[in-house]
Structures are given as C-alpha cells and as structure tokens.
C-alpha cells in the first residue's frame, strides 16, 4: 500500500504546531498502524529528520499509552486502541490525518504525545480503597454477588488512554472518572469511602479543566474497552446520593 500521511508536528509544549505531509510506500495490510508509523520514522531518521514522537508501549491494547486521533476519530475507524488498529482498515492511496488527543486538560508534550497526568491526579483524589498492606481479612470473608463483581469488572477494564476525553466535544472526563467510581463503589470493600470518593474525584476532575458532560455519547463510542455510557448516569446518581448523605 502507498499512503499519504498528514501528521501533527509540534516541537514542544510552547512551540506552535502544524500538519506536515509524508508519503509512505510498501505498507503491508498486516501491519499495525504503529508499525506503519515505525516505517515512516525509520525513513525520517535515515534522512536526518526527527522521527514523529508518539506514545506507545505494550502494543497489545492494554497499557493505554497509544493515543492518536486518526482521520478525526480517537484511535481511528475501528473500536480498538491505535496499536491494535491494522492497515487492512485502510485502502491503498488513502490520505490519513494523524493528530494528538485534543483537550485543554491534555497539553501537547511533542508531536503526537500529550500529558495525561490529570488522570493520575483524579485517581489520587479518591480512586482507591484504603487497605494498607497487611490489614486484609481472608479473601472469602466477604462474598461479593456475581452481578456486582461483574459490574465492577466491566468498569475496572478502563485502560486510562483518554480516548473518551479526546472524542468528547467538551473534553469531558466523565466516562473515565465514572468507570473508577462505579468499579469501587459497587463493591462491599469500597463502601466505607463511597461518598467521599465520588465527591472528591468529581471535584478534582473539574479542577483539572475537563469540560462538562452534555450526554453526546462520543466517549462511549470511542472507548476501546467498551465502558458503557450509562456509567456516567450511575456516577451522577452516586454523586447526588453523596451530596445528600455525606457528613463533612
């Protein structure tokens, strides 16, 4: 396959960026999208140019590092991570636009690399169960009904890639935040911190500059792990419940 790539190039956070055009040839349909970019980068290095910077690591769809907007879609045309997108999803001769996540809470570091540390700070504000090492009772001391365990798991699958934010016209992090709130709040172990967790995480989310939710639903459509849109409604319910109940 022969392709034309239009790639966002930006030297650092302060510098202005622009789209640059590259031609790549000899691309196999079995290549992943990132292996196609590897091919481009090998050519750029040999030509003495700086390769395109992009975040990637596990390349098996679980670490959440890769983060490209491809032809306007977070992670591209398939519902998967960029690393699991294969070139068989494109046609010979295509022109493909490649951009970083676009959100004010995710400033660009370089080229296609953005700073997603705001997600870490949301987790730090309450996305955990306080269980210092050594304090745990036997694992079978508290049975968890299977539907609750499955609900927790379904939300715990979030890989923190940020596609939900990139896809949202408001740059909202509601899907990400709700996934963690719902994972922990449904479990008996998460109950003691149920109210403070949702209140603190939502407050941090707002402080970090993420936008509000207008139920556009783009987030759940872009999510490579299928975190469902009702996750947001469930968090809103938790938040409302907490505001009425919490003793501060």
């Amino acid at each position, binding site marked *: 396959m022969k392709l034309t790539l239009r790639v966002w190039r930006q030297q*650092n956070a302060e510098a202005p960026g622009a789209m640059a055009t590259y031609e790549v040839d000899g691309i*196999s349909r*079995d290549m*992943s999208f*990132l*292996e196609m970019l*590897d091919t481009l980068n*090998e050519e750029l*290095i*040999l030509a*003495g*140019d*700086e*390769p395109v910077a992009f975040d*990637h*690591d*596990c*390349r*098996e*769809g*679980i*670490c*959440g590092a890769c983060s490209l907007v491809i032809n306007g879609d977070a992670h591209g045309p398939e519902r*998967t991570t960029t690393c*699991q997108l*294969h070139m068989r999803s494109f046609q010979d001769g295509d022109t493909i636009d490649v951009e970083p996540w676009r959100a004010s809470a995710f400033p660009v570091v*370089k080229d296609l*690399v953005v700073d*997603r*540390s705001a*997600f*870490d700070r949301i*987790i*730090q504000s309450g*996305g*955990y*169960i306080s*269980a210092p*090492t*050594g*304090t*745990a*009772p*036997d*694992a*079978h001391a508290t*049975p*968890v*009904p*299977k539907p609750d*365990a499955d609900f*927790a*798991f379904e939300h*715990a*699958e979030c890989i*923190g890639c940020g596609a939900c934010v990139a896809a949202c016209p408001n740059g909202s992090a509601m899907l990400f935040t709700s996934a963690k709130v719902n*994972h*922990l709040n449904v479990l008996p*172990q*998460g109950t003691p911190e149920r109210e403070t967790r949702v209140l603190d995480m939502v407050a941090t989310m707002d402080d970090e500059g993420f936008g509000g939710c207008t139920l556009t639903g783009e987030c759940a459509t872009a999510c490579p792990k299928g975190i469902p849109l009702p996750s947001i409604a469930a968090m809103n319910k938790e938040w409302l419940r907490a505001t009425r109940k919490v003793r501060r």
Partner: protein
Amino acid sequence: MSDYTQYTTGEPVTDTKAPHGPVADRWDTRRFEARLVNPANRRKHTVIVVGTGLAGGSAGATLAEQGYHVVQFCFQDSPRRAHSVAAQGGINAAKNYRNDGDSVHRLFYDTVKGGDFRARESNVHRLAEISVEIIDQCVAQGVPFAREYGGLLDNRSFGGVQVSRTFYARGQTGQQLLLGAYQALSRQIAAGNVELHARTEMLDLVVVDGKARGIVARDLVTGKIETHFADAVVLASGGYGNVFYLSTNAMNSNATAIWRAHRRGAYFANPCFTQIHPTCIPRTGEHQSKLTLMSESLRNDGRIWVPKAKGDDRPAAEIPEDERDYYLERIYPSFGNLVPRDIASRAAKNVCDEGRGVGPGGQGVYLDFAEAIGRMGRAKVEEKYGNLFDMYAQITAEDPYETPMRIYPAVHYTMGGLWVDYDLQTTVPGLFAIGEANFSDHGANRLGASALMQGLADGYFVLPSTINDYLARNPHTDEIDADHPAVAEAVAETEDRLSLLLAVDGDRTPDSFHREIGELMWEYCGMARTEKGLRTALERIPVIREEFWRRIKVPGTGEQFNQSLEKANRVVDYLELAELMCLDALHRAESCGGHFREESQTPDGEAARRDEEFSYAAAWEFTATGDAPVLHQEDLVFEYVHPTQRSYA
C-alpha cells in the same frame, strides 16, 4: 575465539541471610531476627524505587504506608502503564479453596520442580507461604477477581500443576492487580509520602563508599540529566527479554537499570535462563515490532495439534481427525496440553522443524477449541476466554470460534536477573532488586501465573520486611553531595555516552541494530542452544558493538524529548548483556528448564540436567566492556524436594 570466553572463577557466593532450620519456619525466623526501624525514624529515610509494575508499585505503596519517604520513577507517562498490566492468565495461591489437595507445601514443591531444581528452596517456600496473603490483600483493594454465583472466588488450572489454584480476572489479571497496586500508590502520592517522577528513566546507579546511595536519571521530556539520592535503592525495572528484539515485552521495557547496576558491582545471575512462551500469535512479516501472547490458560480447554503428514497445507477443517497429531497429549498423556512452558515450546519447535508446522512459513501449530465449544457451548467459552478470542481476531483477522488459532513460541520472561540474597539485596549493599529484575524464585523455568505472585510477594511483603534490617544497620547519615567524586563520575559517564550517541551521525538507526542483535540471539541463544552456535554469537557480538559505535544515527539533541536517543541508549546495554547471556549459556553445558543445550538431552529428546556439575546459580561479576567476567557460584541445596528428572508423561 574471543577473550571474553576465558572467564575466571572467583569466590563462591553464599546467601548469608537465609536462616537454617525447618524450611517452613525460615521466613518467621528471618523476620524476627531482622532489625526494625522505629516508626518515628522511618520518615528520615528516603528509599528510591525504580519501576511501578507489580513489584515496584506494591513496594512503593507499602514502604510509604510504613512511613518511609519514597521517591519513585517510571519511564511511562503514568505508573499505571508498567508492563505487568499485560499479564493475562492469573495469579497462583495455595488457598486450597477447591479442596483438591493443594497446600503451601504443594505450591512450593511444584515451583521447585517446575523450575527444574535451579531455584533456592528457602525463597520458594516463602513465596508459597505469602501467596495466600496476596489474594487477601488484593481483594481488600477491590481487585475484581472472577467469582462464582455464590459470591466466592473462582479458580482455574495452569500448566505444570494438577490442582486449581489460579485466581484470575478474565484475561486481564495483570491489569487488575496492577491497578490495585497503582491505586494504593496513588493514595500515598496524594498523602505526600511518595514523590513520583513519571517519564523519567534511570541511566546509572550512584555508589558511594561501597553503598547504593542514588541514581542518575534522565527527564524524558526536558532531556535533563538529574541525580536523586537516598538511603537505599530498589530496582523493580522488570526483565530483559527485549534483548531478543521480538518478545512479548512492551516496546520500552529494557535492561538499562539492571545492567548499569551490574556494571557498578551487582552480580548478574543465570542470565541464560529465559522463558519462551508456547502460546503467542505467530509473526506476519519483517515489519513485526513485537509479539502478542495468548494466555496459557487457553491450554486448559484448547487442544494443540499439527497434521500428521509433512507439508500438509489443507485448511484445518479439511484435515480429518485421524490425520491430526495431538502431539502433547500423545507424548505427555498425564499432563497433556498442560505441560510446563519450556516443554510445550520445545515440542512446538520440534514439530515445525519436522516440516509439520502450519500457517505462513510453517512457523505455527493449531490451538483448537472445537472440542471445548462442543462440550461447554460457545457461550461458556466466550465467558472464559472472550477477550483473548477478540484480541486474536483483531490481530489476525481470523475467527477463532470457527477456525483453530495458530500459535508459536516467543520470548516472554527472564528468570535470570540481578543476584539477590534472601533479603532481596544485591551484592551492592543498599541495592535491592525485586520482581522480574531479580533471579531468585523461578530457577530455570517459571510456572504460569507465578510471575504476578512473585512480583507482589516481593513488593507487598518481602522487601518491606527485609529493607528495615538494612536501614536499621545503616542509620541515615549526611546528605550526599552532588559534587562527590562518585556522583560526578556517574553523571559524566552518562552525559558522555549520550553525547557520543548523538555525535556519531552514522547511517544506521537504533532499531536496525536492535533487530540485528535480537535475531542473532534468537538464532543462537533461543529455544535450543549449541556450543558451536553460542561461540558464533560470541564472535559476532563484539563486531556488532563496534559497528554500532561507528554507524549509529540519532537525530535531534539531548535537551529535548527524543525517543531515538532513549532507544539507542537501551541498545548500548543490550549489546553488552547479550554477550553475558551467551557466555552463561555456553558455560552451562547442561539442559535445564528454559535452557536447552542440544548436547545434553535424553535419548527421547528431553532436557538432561547434570546436577553433579551444575547444581548452582551462576552469579557473574562485571569487569569491563568486552572483558571476561568473573563467575561466582552459589551452590543449591535441596533438603525437601529431591532433584529428579522432571516427568510430565
């Protein structure tokens, strides 16, 4: 023949910290004998932890909970992305919730045997004891393990064992355990007890007056070379499988932290013990950048086969039952498809070498679920393995519910690593190594679902107990001065290395060298090794290294985000580590576990150990780049599990 192979043998190395007495009492004894640090004094101590995977994340969180000041590093943008996240199948624990005859002693026995009698009994028994506490800890953190309808935890079986002791969270067990550790760590970051440096990579160890006192690191965003000081340094930087270029490791996993520590005096043990995982998706072409593992748990219900006839290129569905060879079930009737990884991998290589492999290039075998779907129904198979099947379909564009999966072995895990004593301390006082970065628990072959167990055992329970003893004996003294000669030397060396990489301006990319050394290692130091092949590799490596420093091309500067520079610097260390791996493989003229020397096999082609000569851990001491290292042997004593030739037939 290069001088490198003329290694000398130094003083034997002994594990001075493991107590004597009954194996079941040793961990209690050690914890009692270890000195403690007064809670009020702990905050005066700073501990550096490099890495935020299962071992590093759990250690950082636990040390901070105890009151130490922790300074933690990861090269990823977030601690949640460490490669432990990709572990799929599960974590072992001797809970005996299935009442199927499991016990701490059986897990201990299985692990020593599975490791082909090249691990320490004391360490393995401790691991088995702690396994049960890990599950309790993770459940308390909210890790969503698979449960049954009664609300209790579910278990599955794994290769090399005959009990069901593996706890799992669908095919994402590593992710869920890592998020548990990450969340515990996040809580400590918020509390101000952990100072986290993300996108920061350790490039050297600072040793002052014979003790590990800090690290040299590069801020990957600004390119700034920084020094960080502490009272002890913990390396939790993972394994070195990426020396093979193609492996199931993450693209950025690397050996730099442990290799630089080795160069500063930490012995490197059993580097040739690498694990080739039997169930990975075969490669599709030259462009392949990494390999993807399919969890070994698939072998619970999938049946592995190849055509009986050579060169049979009919589609799987057209090959009748009596023309298929379910070779694992045929050769190993009692363990069948659940033999340990090394045995399954080698069997796959053998049938492919015979010309009976399937798929492009004949480098694959079938993993067939037709029988399981017929027995349990598609819905049940989907519930158990759905995400793995989806992943396979995504990568190969084939539907594994309809046609059998194709699998082939790939480098997956490294049992070798920095030599550590029972306290997990290396030969550099104050430098500890935990998780895959050390060598201690898996011998010559790791059993499935044991890496997660070891990483969390080390991080949550072992290190936080043993590091106290070191810190109590080495009270906090004066701050290290950045002008100290040892510090200045480490910084200057690092800066010079990076400057040179940028200055060569040759005509080959870092990736091209990485690929070259990787292919060499896979060819000569992969699934089957020979003296001739290893000597060939040992002659080639210095040549490649010389060429690297003549022809490497790294664009850009050091004072910026520069992924080519990061990569090139990691390749520098692979080019040295590869040499030590080959030498270790050459010197160990026996087959054991993942190390298969063709010269040492039984008449029916199984690995033949030579206990009289090689029942020891090989700990190598660095001398200089390209110069022969010094071998220190640690004799292995088996008081409880008598070494026998492994049999899974």
